[in-house]
């Protein structure tokens, strides 16, 4: 740097310093800062408590449960995916498995989750497996529990990457994990940290998708072939239950759980 | 950056001082030359570097003059020649002679000749006039304006000053920042592609020295309005009268002054 470019005295910086010094020298400010520090010190333990408050494990005796069946108003045709890549492994086309609806219009793969549960039983130690099989995620819809693990597998001889993201709507998401599985039988374990409904994708094979509901509480379930689900051992009280399906969308229902009883919760989706 | 030339100068000075103490004019001569060379080259740390040709000229002059100086008195001259004579003739300097006289000097001379005879080609330099002379009149979308004494009508409306600047900001970032930079420093992401490089607005060299009317002329007319000496054929500055209204041009001008902390020249 040439000498004349050197600013021997940086005016901009100097004005800021002077401002700071002026503020500092004011008596009130000194007092404020001092007291502020004191308050922060006192509040610190409280803040720590506030963080932990998330989910409180208690012994649940005589809890109630929610049980029900999710149905569709009619049969919906499952779309067929056109596959243009890695055809030797993935095949030329595959069913999307989006609408798996039985003859009785019972819908599989619907997530039913009780939201914002403050207290309840301990979280089960079940890790959630996401397997890349023939260019498809298995399972397509799953529930994971915060604190447990994802076990992400690649059973194909080709590259997959598994990208989890919180769904933000309109094709947007917030990445949670994006992990590479370049080779067959590669397994990656990752802790379930971020709660919420997440989409699982493979950027290399854009048609691949799955959904995981990462739950902070143990109270979440996926419907089976018959559209049935059951959520057990809830403390009595009023809850909001979220019912979500990839194709049909989401509804939220208020449910009151009574001690020792099974509350029925049925829902019928209508394809728009 | 390692400041090597002052070090060279100091080494030269040291060598010549030692040579003076040990009464060896030849090394005094060599030391002084090194010192002067270092000094001339060091100039680049405090001003634009001296052109190579001028340095060459000065050095040639110094060699000539210093040689003359050391040959004034007989004893000095003898002492001056002694090292050279010794290298050329003394028996105990055989090795040195082999290296210097029979190898290094001929090779060096050959190299210098090579450098000199090797054809070099330099592309034409396009000189740039940073502030070309504005015309007295210009035409803005068919409206004739006197450039000299043109005033920014929006400046009078002091109540809406902040609003205009903000609108100017939007115009700037939709039309100008590609070249003139996010920070108005002339280093926009497309700046590299163009030659001459876009001008920065920061600092005191560009818009700070200009009245707003000049900037208005440059923004509205762009390359088309440049006089021949300023190389309109190279300029990528668009004629913004094609894209902006008169008021928008004034707004963007207000923004570039305001955001760089410069004041338009008013005299």
């Amino acid at each position, binding site marked *: 740097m040439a000498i004349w470019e050197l600013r021997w005295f940086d005016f901009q910086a100097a004005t800021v310093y002077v401002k700071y010094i002026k503020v500092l020298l004011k008596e009130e400010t000194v007092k404020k800062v001092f007291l502020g520090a004191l*308050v922060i010190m006192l509040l610190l333990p409280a803040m720590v408590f506030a963080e932990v408050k998330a989910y409180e494990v208690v012994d649940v005796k005589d809890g109630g449960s929610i049980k029900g069946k999710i149905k569709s108003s009619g049969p919906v045709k499952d779309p067929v995916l056109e596959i243009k890549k890695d055809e030797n492994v993935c095949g030329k086309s595959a069913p999307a498995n989006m609408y798996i609806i039985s003859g009785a219009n019972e819908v599989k793969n619907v997530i039913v989750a009780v939201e914002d549960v403050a207290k309840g039983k301990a979280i089960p130690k079940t890790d959630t497996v996401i397997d890349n099989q023939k260019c498809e995620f298995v399972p397509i819809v799953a529930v994971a529990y915060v604190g447990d693990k994802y076990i992400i597998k690649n059973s194909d001889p080709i590259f997959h990457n598994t990208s989890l993201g919180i769904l933000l709507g309109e094709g947007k998401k*917030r990445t949670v994990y994006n992990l590479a599985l370049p*080779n067959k039988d590669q397994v990656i374990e990752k802790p379930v940290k971020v709660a919420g409904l997440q989409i699982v994708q493979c950027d290399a094979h854009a048609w691949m998708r799955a959904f995981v509901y990462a739950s902070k509480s143990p109270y979440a379930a996926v419907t089976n072939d018959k559209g049935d689900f059951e959520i057990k051992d809830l403390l009595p009280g009023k809850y909001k239950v979220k019912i979500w399906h990839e194709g049909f969308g989401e509804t939220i229902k208020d449910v009151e759980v009574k001690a020792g009883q099974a509350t029925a919760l049925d829902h019928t989706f209508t394809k728009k | 950056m390692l400041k090597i030339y002052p070090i060279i100068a100091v080494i030269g000075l040291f060598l010549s001082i030692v040579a003076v103490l040990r009464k060896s004019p030849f090394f005094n001569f060599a030391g002084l030359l090194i010192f002067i060379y270092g000094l001339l080259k060091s100039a680049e740390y405090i001003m634009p570097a001296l052109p190579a040709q001028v340095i060459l000229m000065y050095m040639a002059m110094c060699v000539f003059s210093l040689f003359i100086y050391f040959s004034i008195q007989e004893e000095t001259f003898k002492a001056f020649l002694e090292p050279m004579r010794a290298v050329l003739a003394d028996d105990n300097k055989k090795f040195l002679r082999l290296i210097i006289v029979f190898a290094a000097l001929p090779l060096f001379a050959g190299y210098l000749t090579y450098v000199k005879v090797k054809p070099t080609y330099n*592309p034409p330099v396009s000189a740039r006039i940073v502030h070309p002379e504005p015309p007295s009149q210009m035409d803005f979308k068919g409206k004739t304006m006197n450039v000299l004494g043109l005033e920014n009508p929006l400046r009078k409306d002091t109540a809406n000053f902040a609003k205009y600047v903000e609108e100017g900001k939007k115009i700037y970032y939709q039309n100008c*920042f590609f070249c003139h930079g996010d*920070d108005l420093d002339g280093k926009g992401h497309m700046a590299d592609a163009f030659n001459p490089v876009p001008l920065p607005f920061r600092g005191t060299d560009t818009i700070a020295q200009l009245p707003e009317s000049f900037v208005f002329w440059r923004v509205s007319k762009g390359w088309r309005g440049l006089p021949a000496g300023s190389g*309109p*054929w190279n300029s990528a500055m668009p004629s913004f009268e*094609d894209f902006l209204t008169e008021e928008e041009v004034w707004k963007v001008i207000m923004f570039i002054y305001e955001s760089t902390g410069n004041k338009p020249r008013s005299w």
Partner: protein
Amino acid sequence: MRILIAVLLAMCFPVLGYGAENAAGNPEGKKIYDGWCAQCHGYKGDADSFTKDVSLPKPRDFTFGSFKFRSTPSGDPPTSEDLTKVIRNGNPGTSMPPWSRFSDAEVKAIVEHVKSFAPDTFAMEAKPIKIGTPPKASKELIEKGKAEFKAAKCVDCHGNAGRGNGEKGWQDDFKTDWGYGIAPADYTHGWELRNGSSLEDIYRTISVGLSGTPMTSYMDSLSDDKRWALAHFIKSLQLTRQLGLALKVKKTDNLPSKPNDPAWEKVDYMDLPIGGQLMFDTRDFTPVITNVRVRGLYTTKELAILLQWTDKKPNDGSDGKPTDSIRIQFPVKKHEATELPYFFMGTNKAPVNLWQWKASDMDKVFASVAKGHENVEPMEKSDATAMASYDDGLYSVVFKKELKSAKDDPVFEIGKFIPFSITAYDGRNGEENIRGAISAWYYLMMEPPTPLKVYVFPPVISLGVLIVGIGLHKKLRKNKRG
């Protein structure tokens, strides 16, 4: 306990006001952010801003909480240092410049403010991964990296030569978290790797991925040494960019037969940085091609100019979008002194000669004479020819023309600096006519063969000096004896 806190709170009410202001808002940060960041990232941090339509890549939306450039494992938020680094160094190849003007305190305040847009994300703990000492580069290591490049399937997206032309990188829904399309990086253009081009930068990117994009994290799937090997290999792909004003064109006996002939690689080259056409409507604010490499050779009869540039997805115009194309421009007349035609398409007074090659007609030259961008007339006859190839993301187009020139042809004189400029079109980006990436005037100079004197004079002078030295030596010896 709660009561105690409440009492305390009440006691320090004025204090709390001060403290809260400091913690949440960071007014200093907001002020600078609004002044110098909001034009692109939006006053609300949502990238709904002035430049959202005129910049590519688009400015980052902070409210999503996805951050590409991190030193933390996939899924974790970036550290404050990561954000600081982006502000300080900018992102090469984007419109995010390095901000050197702000003090460290000011940057810290900006970082605080940016974090406040995605409180959820930044509530998580962020711990940078450990980057050990990199192994020294060696041929074997690079070979290993090359093998790994295939094994880890990097080729799938980035292509065999790392130009970002991999098949999987070009599906239509290859998208980011923000829902925009994105293209895999071109490793050969080291100067525009967003996350930096140093070995460590590459290693870090491989390890943690770029959140929000398909670039995935390999930290769990590849061992450390493999990642270093990969980084070395990728680093070795980077081109050495040679910027300059004039291209020296050497004489040869035979021109290489093909545009992708390896013989071309030994020829001197010059890189032309190119930018969008901004002077005339419709302007191109978001060009994709940023660099064209030029080489030249000439024989006694012909001049050949090779233009090479990366196009990650070739486009011959068959899908409704314009075709990929490149155009070279010369002044029609011999230019005198430093006056030239206008560097884009000339003017009425000073016309230019254009040779355009299009991917839709691989071996054809569309020659025309332009007197300004609105006044282009195709030439009836031009003996300029073209040959082209597309290999692994790289277009190579050779223009050839006989040295003698007819009317309206450029004048090619040996030993003279002949001005030329380039316009490159990426059809996929919708570029055609006057929308395209353009270069300034550059020169090419057909170097006359080295004159004989270069080989004769130096040895003669050397010998002369030697003889003088020996003569002096002899003479002084004689004097000494005598």
